C-alpha cells in the first residue's frame, strides 16, 4: 500500500494550492492510511494538518522540505548567510540551493527538525527586516541535527540529488548523496523517486535507482502533490507565477507543467511506479517507522509546571488573599470551602504552576503599569489585565487577580472551567490595555528569555482585492483595468461580488475577456489561502524547554521580535501557554473610567466587587439604552435587546454571542427570541428541541446553537461523534475552504444520527444548523468575558456617566459611534459637556467640577481635551498645559502666546475651536477676535523681514469684527474638533426645514406602517454580509437616533448618497416591532433647508446661504462598517 511521504499545502506559501484541511480530507477520501505533510522550510501547517488527519482517521506524519545552501560545484558551504539583496521571490541560480525531504521519526527528530528550520530562517531578515530572503540551512547544520530524522534525497527538479542529474552534474549529485548517507546512516537515508510526468523522468529515475544500489540504500517513491484535487492545479500554476512576480507565460519553466501534481489515490500512485514496486513498498515500511505524533508528543511545558513547591505556594497565596477579601463577609466559610475544593482539583490536574505563572505575568504587568502610569494611579487597585473566559467562575482566579469577579458573591459555578476530566489547559486569556502592551512584550522576553518566549504567527489570507491584483498580474491583464476593478471590491465580498464589480468597472464587453473569466474562477479558489506569514499583534507563547525544541522560531518583520511558526489556533492545539497582550479598547476605557472616578470623586472603585444584578443597569440594557457600552451598543444589538430582554449576566453572555454570523446564518436568532418571549409569558413553556438528545447540550440557549462549543456537543450527542471527531468537524467548519472535509463529516454525521435512531429529516435539519453556523461564533468562554465587560461598561455608564463618556472619548477610535454621537447621546441624558478651553482643558478629556463663582453648581462636567483640536501639535499642547499648571491661568492671548510658546498655526486652530474663548482679555470672547489677537501676537510667522517673536503684551483693541454666531461656531467646531458640544446642528437648522419632517422623538407616537419623512446626520452605515445586500444607516437629529433600513433597489438608486452624504432626508415606512423602531426607506434626498425667508429671530444664519453645504463639508463622516457585521 502506497503512503504519501512528500506533499505540499498552501503553507509552502505560493507553492501549494490546498489547505492542510483539504489535503487531509482528500487523503482520507482516497483511502490513505497515513500521510506526510512536507511544506517548504516550515511546519506552519503541520499542527492543523495533524489534527485534521486525526479527525479523519488518517495517521499524520510530520516533516518538511528543507532548502539547503550549496554551491553549483558541490554542496560544501558552511556559511549560513544569505546573499544581500536576494528575496524569496527570485530563485537563486541553479545549483545554488537544493531541497531535501525530512521526516520525523521520534521526539529527538522533531526537536532536530525544529532547530534546523529555525537555523534556516535565522538570517532571512538580516539585510532589511521588511524584505525576507529565502531560508536556507547549511549541510553542516543538517549533519549536526540528523538524529531521529529520516532524509529523502529530494524532489525531481530541485532535489539535492535528482536536481544534480537535471543539471547534468551527476558527480556532484552522488557526492552529496554520500554525504547525506554518512550523516543519516543507512537506516535513515533514502533515494527519492518521483514521477511528475516530465520529459526526463525515466532516465532520472533509472540513474537514481542505480545510485541507490551503489549506495546500498532503498529508494522510495513520493508523489509531491501540490493540490488536493486536479481542479486546483490551475491555481497552483497561478500561485507560482504570483510568487515569482511573473506572468503565467513567463513562469513556464517553474510551474509544475501538468496536473499530475494533484493528489491521487494510493492505487494510482502504485501504478505510476509500476517499474519500482520496491520503492512503493518502501513507503509503507518507512511510514510504519515514522511514528511521531505531533498532537501528543510535543513535550511542551510551561514555566513552573515542574515546580514541586507550586501546590503549596498557590495554596499559601490564595489563603492569604482569602483573609483579606472575605474578612467579615458572611460567606467566608463558603468561600473557604470552594477554595479548598478548587485547589484539590488543581493539584490533581497538576496545574498549580499554571496559575502561578499567570499571576506572575500579571505582577509583571503591574510593575510595567506602575512605570507607565505612575504609582499613584487609581488603576493600581487592580492588576492591569484580566482573564477572560470561564475563568471568571473560579475563586482561585479571583484571589490571584486573574478575574475581577467574586464568584461566591455572583454565585458562579466553576464546573465548566475546572473539572477533573479536563484534558486541555483551562482557558485564561489575558487582555491588557493598550499602553501596557508595548512595554510588556519586551519585558516578557527579558523575564523568560528569548529562547523561551516568542510571538504567535498570523497568516494573512487572500481577500478579493488582493486576489484581483495578484491574479490579474499573473494573467497579464492591463494594470489600469486591474486597478479599476481592485479598487471597487470590498474587503469581505465574495467571488460573485467581484464579477459584479468587474462588470460595473469595465463594462460587459471587457468583462467577457477570457482572462477575466479565468480570473473570476481562480479568485473563487484562492480566497482564504494564506499568502505569507506575519506576526500576531499581541499573542505570546512561553515555554520551559527552549521554544526552538517545540516549534521553529523565525524572525519577525519588526526588528528584535520573533515568532513561532504557528498561528493562534495551532498554538492552542499545541497546548501552548499563550498570553494575549492584545490591547482591547474597552478594557482600557473601563480602566481609564475607574481612574477618572478616583480623580473626580475621590472614590476608589473595585470593578470586581460591583453588583452583578443591578436593576438600573439591566433596565437600560433591556431598553437598548446602550450607546458606548461594549458589544451591545451596535445597531443590530440595539434592535435585539428589547426583544430578548436580558435579565442577568448569563443572558448578557448569550446576547453578546448572538449577533455573530454563526448564530445568524445557523438560524438561531429568531427561535431564541421567540422562545425567550414564550418563556417570559409562561415559565412552564417547553422548549421544542429538535430531538430529546439535544436537550442537555442546548438547554441554556433554548435549543439553538449560539456558542462554538455547542457544535461539538451537538455532534457528540446526536451522532455519537467521539470528541476528536467532533473537534475535527468544528475545525472543518471554522477554517475556510474545506467543503470536502465538511462533506465527509456530513456523511458520518447522518450515519451516526441514524445509528442513534434519529430520523434523517431531523438529522439533516440539525446538520444545516451546524453548517450555517460554520464556526463563526464566539466560544462560551469568550462570550463570558465579553459579556462581563459589556455589563461593567453598562454599569459604569449608568452610575458614572460623565467619567464613562470621558474615558470613551479618550480611547478613540473604538466602538460603533463617532465621538460627536457619543457626546450628543450623553447630552440627551443630561450629562454636561464643555468645549476645549486653554485655561481648563488638559491634553486628554477630563471630568471637572464646575466653579461656584461661575454660578454653576453641582454635577460634573466633561471637559473636552485640547488634543481633540485637529492639527495642534501634541508637544505644544503638553507645554501649554504644563506652563498653566506651573504659572497659573493665562490672562490674555498675548500672554498665552509668549508663555506657552505655541506657534501661530496651533493658536489659530485653538482659536477656531473656541479654546481661547475663555481667555479674559478679549472683549466678548468671540473667536474672530481671538484669532485676530493670536495673529498679531503669536510667534512664528515669517514675514518679509524675518521671523516674528512673540510679544508679551496685549495688542490694542481689535477692529470691529462681526461675531461668528451660533452657526459659524458650529461649523468651526466640526472643522476643528470633528464634534460640537453646543447645540445640535439639526436644532439650528430645524426652523428652516419643512415642518412636516418628523423628529426622532415623534416616531414613538406614529403608527406602525405609516409613511414618515425624517432628516438628520448619518452617524453610522453598515452593510452586513448576512443581510442580503441591505444597508443600515443611523440617522441622528437633535432628539435622538433612528435606524434606516435601505433595501437594495433604493441603495442602487442612491448609491452616492448612502455611501457619502453626511446629512440626509429620508422617506419611508415606519416599522415597529417589540420596542424597536425602523424606517424602511423608499426615497432619499440630500438635506436642503426650505428657501423660505427666515425670520429675524432665527438662530440659523440668514446672511450666509450655503449653510448646509458648509456643514456638509465638515460634518463627521460617520462610521462605516464593511460587509461583515460587528
Amino acid at each position, binding site marked *: 500500500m502506497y503512503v504519501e511521504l512528500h506533499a505540499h499545502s498552501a503553507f509552502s506559501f505560493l507553492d501549494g494550492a490546498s489547505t492542510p484541511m483539504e489535503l487531509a480530507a482528500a487523503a482520507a477520501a482516497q483511502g490513505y492510511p497515513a500521510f506526510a505533510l512536507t511544506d517548504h522550510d516550515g511546519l506552519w501547517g503541520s499542527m492543523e494538518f495533524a489534527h485534521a488527519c486525526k479527525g479523519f482517521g488518517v495517521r499524520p506524519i510530520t516533516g518538511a522540505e528543507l532548502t539547503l545552501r550549496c554551491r553549483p560545484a558541490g554542496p560544501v558551504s558552511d556559511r549560513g548567510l544569505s546573499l544581500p539583496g536576494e528575496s524569496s521571490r527570485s530563485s537563486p541560480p541553479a545549483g545554488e540551493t537544493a531541497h531535501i525531504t525530512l521526516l520525523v521519526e521520534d521526539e529527538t527528530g522533531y526537536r532536530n527538525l525544529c532547530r534546523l528550520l529555525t537555523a534556516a530562517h535565522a538570517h532571512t531578515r538580516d539585510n532589511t527586516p521588511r524584505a525576507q530572503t529565502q531560508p536556507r540551512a547549511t549541510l553542516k547544520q543538517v549533519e549536526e541535527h540528523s538524529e531521529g530524522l529520516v532524509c529523502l534525497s529530494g524532489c525531481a527538479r530541485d532535489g539535492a540529488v535528482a536536481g544534480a542529474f537535471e543539471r547534468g552534474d551527476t558527480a556532484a549529485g552522488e557526492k552529496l548523496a554520500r554525504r547525506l548517507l554518512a550523516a543519516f546512516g543507512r537506516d535513515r537515508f533514502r533515494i527519492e523517486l518521483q514521477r511528475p510526468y516530465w520529459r526526463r523522468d525515466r532516465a532520472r529515475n533509472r540513474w537514481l535507482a542505480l545510485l541507490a544500489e551503489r549506495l546500498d540504500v532503498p529508494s522510495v517513491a513520493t508523489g509531491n502533490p501540490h493540490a488536493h484535487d486536479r481542479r486546483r492545479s490551475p491555481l497552483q500554476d497561478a500561485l507560482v507565477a504570483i510568487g515569482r512576480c511573473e506572468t503565467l507565460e513567463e513562469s513556464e519553466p517553474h510551474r509544475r*507543467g*501538468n496536473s499530475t501534481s494533484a493528489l491521487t489515490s494510493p492505487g494510482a500512485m502504485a501504478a505510476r511506479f509500476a517499474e519500482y514496486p520496491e520503492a512503493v513498498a518502501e513507503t509503507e515500511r518507512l511510514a510504519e517507522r515514522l511514528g511521531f505524533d505531533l498532537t501528543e508528543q510535543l513535550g511542551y511545558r510551561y514555566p513552573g509546571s515542574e515546580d514541586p513547591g507550586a501546590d503549596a505556594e498557590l495554596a499559601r497565596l490564595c489563603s492569604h488573599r482569602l483573609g483579606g477579601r472575605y474578612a467579615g463577609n458572611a460567606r467566608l466559610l463558603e468561600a473557604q470551602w470552594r477554595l479548598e475544593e478548587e485547589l484539590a482539583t488543581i493539584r490533581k490536574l497538576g496545574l498549580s504552576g499554571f496559575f502561578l505563572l499567570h499571576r506572575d505575568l500579571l505582577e509583571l504587568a503591574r510593575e510595567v503599569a506602575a512605570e507607565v502610569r505612575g504609582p499613584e494611579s487609581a488603576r493600581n487597585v487592580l492588576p492591569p489585565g484580566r482573564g477572560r473566559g470561564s475563568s471568571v467562575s473560579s475563586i482561585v482566579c479571583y484571589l490571584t487577580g486573574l478575574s475581577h469577579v467574586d464568584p461566591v458573591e455572583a454565585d458562579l459555578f466553576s464546573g465548566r472551567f475546572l473539572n477533573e476530566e479536563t484534558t486541555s489547559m483551562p482557558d485564561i486569556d489575558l487582555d491588557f490595555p493598550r499602553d501596557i502592551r508595548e512595554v510588556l512584550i519586551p519585558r516578557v522576553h527579558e523575564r523568560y528569555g528569548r529562547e523561551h518566549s516568542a510571538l504567535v504567527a498570523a497568516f494573512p489570507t487572500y481577500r478579493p482585492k488582493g486576489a484581483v491584483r495578484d491574479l490579474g498580474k499573473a494573467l497579464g491583464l492591463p494594470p489600469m483595468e486591474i486597478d479599476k476593478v481592485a479598487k471597487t471590491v470590498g474587503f469581505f465580498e465574495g467571488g460573485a461580488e467581484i464579477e459584479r464589480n468587474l462588470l460595473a468597472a469595465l463594462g460587459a464587453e471587457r468583462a467577457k475577456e*477570457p482572462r477575466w473569466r479565468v480570473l473570476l474562477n481562480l479568485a473563487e479558489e484562492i480566497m482564504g489561502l494564506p499568502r505569507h506569514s506575519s506576526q500576531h499583534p499581541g499573542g505570546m507563547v512561553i515555554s520551559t524547554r527552549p521554544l526552538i525544541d517545540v516549534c521553529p522560531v523565525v524572525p519577525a518583520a519588526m526588528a528584535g521580535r520573533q515568532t513561532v511558526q504557528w498561528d493562534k489556533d495551532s498554538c492552542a492545539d499545541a497546548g501552548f501557554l499563550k498570553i494575549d497582550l492584545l490591547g482591547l479598547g474597552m478594557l482600557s476605557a473601563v480602566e481609564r473610567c475607574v481612574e477618572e472616578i478616583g480623580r473626580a470623586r475621590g472614590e476608589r472603585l473595585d470593578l470586581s466587587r460591583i453588583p452583578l444584578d443591578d436593576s438600573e443597569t439591566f433596565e437600560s440594557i433591556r431598553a437598548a439604552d446602550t450607546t458606548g457600552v461594549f458589544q451591545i451598543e451596535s445597531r443590530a444589538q440595539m434592535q435585539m435587546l428589547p426583544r430578548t430582554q436580558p435579565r442577568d449576566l448569563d443572558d448578557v453572555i448569550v446576547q453578546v454571542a448572538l449577533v455573530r454570523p454563526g448564530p445568524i446564518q445557523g438560524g438561531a436568532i429568531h427561535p431564541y427570541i421567540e422562545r425567550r418571549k414564550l418563556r417570559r409569558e409562561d415559565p412552564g413553556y417547553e422548549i421544542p428541541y429538535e430531538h430529546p438528545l439535544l436537550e442537555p447540550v442546548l438547554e441554556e440557549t433554548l435549543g439553538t446553537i449560539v456558542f462554538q462549543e455547542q457544535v461539538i456537543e451537538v455532534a457528540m450527542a446526536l451522532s455519537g461523534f467521539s470528541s476528536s471527531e467532533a473537534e475535527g468537524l468544528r475545525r472543518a467548519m471554522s477554517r475556510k475552504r474545506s467543503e470536502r472535509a465538511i462533506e465527509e463529516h456530513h456523511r458520518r454525521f447522518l450515519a451516526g444520527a441514524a445509528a442513534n435512531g434519529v430520523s434523517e429529516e431531523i438529522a439533516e435539519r440539525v446538520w444545516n444548523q451546524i453548517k450555517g453556523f460554520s464556526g463563526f461564533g464566539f466560544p462560551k468562554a469568550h462570550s463570558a468575558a465579553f459579556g462581563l465587560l459589556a455589563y461593567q461598561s453598562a454599569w459604569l455608564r449608568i452610575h458614572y456617566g460623565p467619567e464613562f463618556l470621558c474615558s470613551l472619548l479618550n480611547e478613540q477610535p473604538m466602538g460603533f459611534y463617532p465621538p460627536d454621537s457619543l457626546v450628543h447621546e450623553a447630552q440627551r441624558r443630561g450629562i454636561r459637556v464643555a468645549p476645549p478651553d486653554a485655561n481648563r482643558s488638559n491634553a486628554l478629556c477630563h471630568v471637572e467640577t464646575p466653579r461656584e463663582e461661575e454660578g454653576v453648581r453641582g454635577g460634573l462636567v466633561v471637559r473636552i481635551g485640547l488634543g481633540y483640536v485637529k492639527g495642534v501639535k501634541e508637544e505644544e499642547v503638553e507645554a501649554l498645559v504644563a506652563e498653566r499648571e506651573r504659572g497659573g491661568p493665562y490672562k490674555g492671548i498675548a500672554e498665552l502666546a509668549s508663555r506657552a510658546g505655541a506657534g501661530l498655526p496651533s493658536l489659530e486652530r485653538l482659536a477656531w475651536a473656541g479654546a481661547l474663548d475663555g481667555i479674559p482679555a478679549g472683549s466678548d470672547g468671540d473667536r474672530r477676535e481671538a484669532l485676530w489677537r493670536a495673529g498679531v501676537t503669536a510667534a512664528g510667522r515669517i514675514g518679509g523681514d524675518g521671523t516674528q517673536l512673540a510679544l508679551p503684551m496685549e495688542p490694542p483693541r481689535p477692529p470691529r469684527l462681526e461675531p461668528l454666531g451660533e452657526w459659524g461656531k458650529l461649523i468651526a467646531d466640526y472643522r476643528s474638533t470633528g464634534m460640537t458640544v453646543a447645540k445640535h446642528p439639526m436644532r439650528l437648522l430645524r426652523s428652516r426645514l419643512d415642518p412636516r419632517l418628523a423628529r426622532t422623538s415623534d416616531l414613538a407616537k406614529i403608527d406602525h406602517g405609516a409613511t414618515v419623512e425624517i432628516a438628520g446626520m448619518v452617524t453610522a452605515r453598515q452593510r452586513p454580509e448576512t443581510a442580503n445586500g441591505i444597508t443600515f444607516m443611523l440617522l441622528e437629529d437633535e432628539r435622538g437616533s433612528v435606524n434606516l433600513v435601505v433595501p437594495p433597489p433604493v441603495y442602487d438608486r442612491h448609491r452616492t448618497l448612502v455611501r457619502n452624504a453626511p446629512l440626509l432626508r429620508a422617506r419611508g415606512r415606519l416599522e415597529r416591532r417589540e420596542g424597536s423602531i425602523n424606517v424602511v426607506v423608499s426615497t432619499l434626498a440630500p438635506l436642503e433647508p426650505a428657501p423660505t425667508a427666515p425670520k429675524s429671530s432665527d438662530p440659523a444664519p440668514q446672511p450666509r446661504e450655503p449653510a448646509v453645504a458648509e456643514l456638509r463639508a465638515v460634518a463627521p463622516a460617520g462610521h462605516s462598517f464593511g460587509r461583515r457585521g460587528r
Partner: protein
Amino acid sequence: MPGLRRLYAPQRVAVRTDPRGAPATVEGVAVEAVREEWLVEDRWWTPQPLRRHYFEVATADGRALTVFRTARAQRWYRQRA
C-alpha cells in the same frame, strides 16, 4: 505569409496504440520501446489550451521519435527535434 513555414511545426502522423494508450506503431513502423512519456498542460488560461501526451519512442527501424497525442482531438503528431 506565403512561402514561409513555421520551423519545427508538429506534423500529423499515423499511430496505432497498445491497450494502455501508448504508441504501438508509428507510420506503420513497430515501436520497440517507449523511452520517455510525459504530459504538457499549458495555456489553460487562453482560448487555446495545450494538452499533450508525449512519447519518446525507439522504432523497429532504429529511429528515435517524439510523438504526442492531443487531449481534445485525440490526434497524433510528430514533434521535430
